[in-house]
Every structure is written in C-alpha cells, then in structure tokens.
C-alpha cells in the first residue's frame, strides 16, 4: 500500500531537531495520514498531511505553530508537540502523544463494542466538558467536535481529544466548518462561521449521543426521509432542526422501532438532565446565547453521577427526586440506599461511593483528586454501614437528639437517618 511516509524513515522535529523514526501506518483521514513513530525509546504519533490538503488550508502551518506555542489546555488533549519536516520535502506534519490501547473511540461506544458502566460514561462526559472549558478559556475554538475526535477509557472514563490541528483563536477564519450531524444549525445553513458557541452546540450533541446513543434531532422527520442525502441533512440539522423531545412540538418525536435508544434512555435519566438537554435543543438551537456552557454541564454531570445507585438485580439506576420509577433492568420497584443531602444535591451512598473535596469543601468545587470519605461496613457487624472519614480533619456530627459527636480521621459514622455531618464549611444530612 502506498503511504506518504515509509517505515524506518526518519523525519525531524522543527523545534527540538529530534529525529523521529516512522514505525507503522496507523490510519488515514481527509487531511493526512497518521503514523506511529519513536524518538529514542519514546513512542509518539505523527500526522503527515496530504500535499493537496496543505494547498487548500493555507493557515495550517501558522495555526499549528500557534497551537504548539500555546501548549495543551490540559492533559486530555493529544496536542501537537512540534512540527516535523523532512529535508528536500515541502510537506510537513506534527508530533503528538500516542493514544494508549485502552482508549476506545466514541464510534465503539455507538456500535456497542465498548461497554462502559454509567459511572465511567458520565465521568467521560464530565472530563470532556472540563477539557473543552480549558480550551475555550484559552480563547481557542475547536471547530470540529465529533465522535471521531474523542476517545475514552471504558473502565475509567478518562478521555483523549485528538485532531487538534483545527483549533484556532476564536473568531479566526479557518478551513474546517465542522462535521455534519454535529454542526450548529447556523453553520449548516451557512449563516455563521464556527465559534465557541457553535462548539458548545456540538458538545451538547456529543454528550447526547454518548448518554442516549442517539442523535437529538433524529425523530419522525428523519423516519419520513427515504434517501438520507445532503438536502435531507441540511433540512434536519440546519433549516428545520427540531428536538425529538421538544415539549411544545411533538412533530419530531422518536419513532418506536427506529429510535428506541432515545426512548429507553430518556426515561431512565433524572428530570434535571432531561431539562438541561431540552434547553440545549430548544432555546439553544435558535439562540447562540442559549447554549449550555461547560460549567453547567460539569455541575449537571457530577449530580448525575452522584445520583447513580444499584438495584438488587445489579442494574444501575438514577435517583430522581421528582418521580418514582421501577428498575429498567428487572422492572421491580427500586429500593433506595441511604443518601446524603448536601445543599440542593443528593449523593447516593452505595457500597462503593466515595466523597471528594468537591462534596465536602465549599472552596474546592470540582476537586476529585483524593477521596475524603468512603462508604464502609462495620468490621464486626456486616449489616451496619457507615461513612468513613478519610480526610485529615475531624467531622462534627449532630444526631437526631441534637447531641454532638466528633468523628476523627479514619473513624466512621453510622448511616442512620437524621444524622447531619459538618465537614468543615459544608453540612450534609443522611437520609434513609
């Protein structure tokens, strides 16, 4: 097979003058080819552009140089490290970290070749929101969020974002407008160029896809299209976009037999998630200012993860303060585990639940680095469950009779109704 670079070929890093030896061809896209390569003993990935693509995208070189100078927004990006060139060859490419084998594509998720738990899946969604927040906060725009550019570890929910060569300063004119099905309607119609707000729309689509395994605009209207061609796509995603769960307009509702995933998952998630998706694809469809920002996604997704609990059958369900549901897996009435009410949110206290500084310290929102508390079992009495203090500070607990006790580090408090725990600057109440 003819590829642009051959194995054992050496190319050079522009910045470091490092020599990179090509190992194997990994894949090709519309812009170029990706190879596995090594420098000294370190494996990297190298993307090498098609000559015709370089001609079409005049800003590519400058854009990559800017990205390399700015550096990666966080560790979740397979960010360009340096440009690579070859003597006597006008072509170029860039070096990026190599994706580890435990990362699967979102396509694998869609095709059910990767089966993360709800916990890992929501963690992946959360990390995506955080990484795009970092990118946007740097004044950059990604321009092409879609499921070919994101990878995730089905066990942990860690994510990697690749194809960062389209990233540019927000508002810059670029070569890429996005990927159909993910582009904001104003982009599909050609009314506006990509920007941070259109990235936010694409992010909402991607999150919906990941959580529901379905596109939020593919309902009755999609079902009525025989040949799904360009004009059909333009209508569905551009000129007549309508959310399949639009509360005001059911003309694009999911069709049983065709859009079953959407129906199954929509019912399964709690109301607060449905509400935020509804806003994303009703007001957010028409008005760029109505789009859900990453910070709101972070809060919602953390709450969603905290509301997970196990049915006796093993099925994972979500606690929904607004409705009582049966388990989706065994259809029996759900029995709730003890839970912790922290301000307006509820954390389910499952056998494997851990609390982090995010939960226990007002000043450390979004800090999930080390567990501060964990559900455990009484060493002598396996029927007694407790919450163990894994922090360095003592907790003050108030019992229903208003007596006060201290829970020193490593000690546990009984999971009994009516106990309130003061972690320091946050007080939480145990409900059973």
């Amino acid at each position: 097979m003819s590829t642009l670079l051959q194995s054992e070929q050496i190319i050079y890093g522009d910045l470091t003058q490092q020599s990179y030896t090509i190992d194997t061809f990994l894949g090709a896209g519309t812009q170029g080819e990706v190879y596995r390569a090594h420098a000294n003993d370190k494996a990297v990935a190298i993307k090498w552009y098609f000559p015709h693509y370089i001609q079409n995208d005049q800003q590519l070189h400058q854009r990559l140089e800017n990205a390399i100078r700015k550096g990666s927004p966080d560790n979740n990006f397979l960010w360009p490290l340096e440009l690579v060139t070859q003597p006597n060859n006008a072509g170029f490419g860039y070096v990026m970290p190599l994706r580890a084998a435990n990362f699967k594509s979102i396509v694998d998720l869609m095709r059910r070749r990767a089966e993360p738990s709800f916990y890992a899946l929501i963690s992946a969604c959360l990390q995506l929101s955080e990484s795009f927040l970092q990118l946007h906060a740097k004044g950059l725009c990604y321009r092409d969020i879609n499921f070919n550019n994101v990878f995730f570890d089905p066990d942990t929910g860690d994510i990697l974002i690749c194809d960062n060569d389209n990233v540019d300063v927000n508002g810059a004119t670029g070569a890429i407008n996005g990927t159909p099905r993910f582009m904001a309607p104003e982009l599909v119609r050609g009314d506006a160029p990509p920007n941070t707000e259109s990235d936010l729309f694409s992010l909402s689509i991607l999150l919906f896809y990941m959580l529901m395994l379905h596109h939020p605009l593919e309902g009755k209207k999609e079902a009525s299209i025989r040949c799904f061609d360009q004009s059909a796509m333009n209508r569905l995603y551009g000129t007549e976009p309508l959310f399949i769960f639009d509360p005001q307009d059911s003309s694009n509702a999911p069709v049983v037999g065709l859009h079953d995933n959407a129906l199954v998952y929509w019912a399964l998630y709690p109301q607060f998630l449905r509400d935020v998706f509804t806003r994303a694809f009703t007001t957010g469809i028409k008005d760029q200012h109505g789009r859900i920002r990453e910070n709101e996604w972070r809060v919602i997704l953390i709450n969603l993860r905290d509301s997970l609990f196990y049915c006796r059958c093993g099925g994972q369900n979500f606690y929904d303060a607004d409705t009582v549901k049966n388990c989706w897996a065994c259809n029996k009435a759900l029995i709730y585990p003890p839970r912790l009410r922290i301000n307006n949110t509820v954390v389910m206290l499952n056998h494997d639940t851990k609390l982090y500084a995010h939960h226990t310290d007002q000043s450390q929102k979004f800090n999930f680095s080390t567990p501060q508390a964990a559900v455990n079992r009484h060493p002598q009495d396996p029927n007694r469950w407790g919450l163990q203090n894994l922090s360095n500070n003592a907790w003050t607990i108030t019992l229903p009779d208003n007596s006060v006790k201290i829970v020193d580090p490593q000690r546990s408090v009984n999971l009994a109704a009516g106990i309130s725990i003061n972690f320091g600057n946050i007080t939480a109440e145990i409900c059973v």
Partner: protein
Amino acid sequence: MTDIIKRPGGAMANRPLHFFWLADCSGSMYGEKIEQLNYAIRNAIKPMQDVAADNPNAQVMVRAIKFSTGAQWHIAAATPVEEFKWDNLTANGVTDMGLALQLAAEQLDVSQMPERCLPPVLVLVSDGQPTDDFNAGLAALMSKPWGKKSVRIGIGIGSDVDLEVLQKFIGNPEVKPLQANNAEDLVKYIRWASTVVLQAASAPASQVKDQVSTGVVPIPQAPTASDIDADDVW
C-alpha cells in the same frame, strides 16, 4: 452485590448503504488490465471494511455487476461489507455498458430497495467505449428515484476510455472521471472510491471549505495521480 448489568438499549440506529461495483470485462480488458482491476479491488476490501466499521451511521452492503457481451451479476446478493470477498473477473467480449446500467436500475427500483436508506454508491470502471445503447441504460437508471439519488463515480483505465461517457454517468460537473494510466493509480482510485466516497455518502467527514458541495452528497477531492511527489506541491 451482583455483577453490573450492561447499559440498556442497542447500538446506535443506522441505515443501509448499497454499494455497487460496475466492472468492464470486455476483451480489451484482457490480460494485465483485468488483473490490475482484480488486484485493486481486493486491495480495497480491508480499508473499505475499516471505514465501515468506524462509521456508526451506515450498514454497508456490496454488490457487483460485470459487463462485456451482455451484463451479469458478479455478486448478486447484497453482501454485508464484513463478508465481502472478490472472485477474480475474466475478460472477453464487447462493452455492453448500457445493459449494466439497466441491471443496476432494476435493483434500485423502489420495490427492491429498503424503505429508508443512505444514498447508494455506484462505481463504474471501464477502459473503452460502450458498444450498446449507453444512453438508454443511463435513462433507465435515472428513471429510478434511488438511481437519481445515487452517488456515481467513474474510473477509466488507460487512454482509450471514453471520458465523456463516464462524465455523463457521473452527472455532476464538479466530479470528474478519474483516469488511471498505471496499476498504482488504479489501486489509489479504487481505494478512494471504496473508502472516502463511501464515507462521504453516509457520514460526511469534517467539512472543508471550498470542497465540491453540489450533488447528492459532498464528494471530497480525489487523489491526484502522483500525490506523493513533493515537487507538485509548491
């Protein structure tokens, strides 16, 4: 606790995409040309399967028609791409290209096609001039709604090919027939048609500005005959 149960639901909903090879097996293809075509198609199977596996929007089904004196199904049953195999073609006879289009048209009839589909892809490979009524064949194809909606690619082998006929078949002035003057180009073009075009017809990749935008779906730029030579770039 019991083992964690998988999340509910099935794979993401998708649509079938019907892909047709239309291969010229006339006498002039005898020898090297037909063997090069066989090789190029076999070479494209794995990349085609890879593209399909990475595309959750489509279920790719492959069929093939051969034409020389008359036209016949080479692969009659719509075959899932994962199971697609290529039996070598042999060459002999005249170039009844029109009949091949008739044959494709029959299968693109509304009665033969599933209710909901992605645009079908037809790839026509030939080295010469049609010897039968090409226009009647094309008219039959275009009389079918699925024929009209199809994405059509024409690949010419050698210098005797009638590019005008291929252009008529393509029916989109922005997509030009590809002319392969050597085995290497043929491999490249066949691969392009079976991967890039396949992808474009189902889940278009990142939209590059200024790419061909009319037609049923946007067709990305085809590889040039000597894409690798750096001197061509600047």
